């Protein structure tokens, strides 16, 4: 989940240059923790009362001032998310202000609050893309998972309103116990609307600032997650691509990879700012973190660069499956609370993927 994926060629070049030169090319504004849904696995959502106990929302002008500083430092891509970003007071003012600064905007939303007025306003000055999270393929699943009975119908309506405005949409989602039976139906919905869909089966066990801990039962077991992942790949890949993937997974290099630095763009050319103003390298990591509203963007970015580069992922150094495992700093942090232990769930998930692919041969 970031502002830079599906990059085009020019963007790929920019991303590469920015990562090497430590330019903060892409950033996320997590505008608020409020959401009209209440999903089991969400690690951001707070009720209004819980939010009021922790702080208050930043104003449009406060975010725009940070955006002006970001522009000076080279930020081009901004992802607006929440909570549900369309609940943020002044969302369209902020959106339009960011566009005027020359930012390329992507919006993450559950799609249920998109009205004809919002769609028309976005249609007049289009975002790069709207990412809509699809939680299931029926109202029943939305009720069970999101406690939002008519969520599916409302999401479809939101998709249709944006398509009428010719706005690019990508469907995102995570497969969990409540929607695992609907994988085929989710891909059918994407096909019906002619949209790209990306479904993840690994869920980061994050609880962040929510009051309750992460409930292990809110995600699939490693075996179920691997089964679902392979089912999704069969939807997404041609037979040739699937065979190539299978060969890659089964014939991976057996030598351990000794590089223990962070491999993604987090804290190198990408950053995340939560609704408090805490700026971190990615959504899941609380540290290193610094309040951008108190310290300004340039100082905060320097702090993040310096301290993210110190992180060494030593937990998986001796592992021979690193080249086929999707472990990352955030995964280690969420699974173990540190960077020097093996994240057991991810180890089991990778083993299961390999085992199931072997069984299919």
């Amino acid at each position, binding site marked *: 989940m970031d502002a830079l994926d599906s990059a085009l060629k020019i963007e790929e070049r920019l991303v590469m240059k920015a990562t090497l030169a430590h330019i903060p090319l892409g950033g996320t504004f997590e505008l608020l923790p409020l959401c009209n849904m209440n999903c089991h696995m969400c690690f951001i959502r707070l009720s209004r009362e819980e939010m009021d106990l922790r702080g208050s929302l930043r104003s449009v002008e406060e975010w725009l001032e940070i955006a002006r500083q970001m522009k000076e430092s080279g930020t081009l891509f901004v992802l607006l998310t929440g909570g549900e970003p369309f609940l943020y007071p002044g969302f369209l003012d902020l959106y339009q202000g960011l566009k005027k600064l*020359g930012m390329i905007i992507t919006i993450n939303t559950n799609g249920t609050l998109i009205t004809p007025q919002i769609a028309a306003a976005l*249609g007049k000055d289009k975002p790069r893309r709207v990412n809509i999270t699809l939680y299931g393929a029926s109202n029943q699943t939305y009720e069970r998972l999101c406690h939002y009975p008519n969520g599916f119908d409302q999401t479809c309506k939101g998709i249709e309103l944006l398509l009428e405005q010719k706005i*690019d949409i990508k469907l995102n989602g995570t497969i969990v116990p409540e929607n695992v039976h609907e994988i085929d139906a989710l891909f059918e919905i994407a096909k019906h609307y002619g949209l790209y869909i990306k479904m993840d089966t690994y869920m980061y066990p994050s609880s962040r600032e929510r009051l309750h801990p992460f409930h292990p039962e809110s995600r699939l077991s490693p075996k179920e997650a691997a089964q679902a992942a392979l089912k999704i790949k069969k939807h997404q890949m041609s037979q040739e691509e699937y065979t190539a993937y299978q060969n890659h997974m089964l014939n991976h290099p057996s030598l351990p990879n000794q590089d223990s630095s962070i491999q993604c763009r987090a804290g190198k050319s990408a950053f995340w700012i939560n609704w408090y103003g805490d700026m971190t390298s990615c959504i899941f990591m609380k540290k290193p973190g610094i309040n951008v509203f108190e310290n300004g963007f340039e100082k905060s970015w320097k702090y993040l660069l310096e301290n993210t580069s110190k992180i060494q992922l030593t937990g998986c150094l001796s592992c021979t499956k690193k080249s086929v495992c999707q472990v990352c700093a955030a995964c280690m942090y969420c699974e173990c609370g540190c960077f020097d232990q093996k994240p057991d769930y991810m180890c089991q998930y990778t083993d299961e993927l390999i085992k199931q692919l072997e069984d299919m041969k």
Partner: protein
Amino acid sequence: MKKTKEFILRQIADEYLLIPTGQTCEEFNGMITLSETAAYIYEHLEEAESFEKLIEMITQEYEIDPKTAASDAYELLNGMLKNGLIGLSDPKVNW
């Protein structure tokens, strides 16, 4: 010459980029990369009252001979005209 589309010129990581905004996003929602000189021309073309003046401005800004500057600028402006990024501000003098 005048700009006919809404683009914001940005310089990031040694790249000069035209980012569409407003109504222009309806027609094109990507980005255009320009060389440094092309970015200079796009940024300043409305300040020049003629092609000759534009070439004078370019040669004052960059170490380039007028003939090469004129040839490069002609090619660039034609491309921009063809793609509708700019238009004539004074058709009587073809500028």
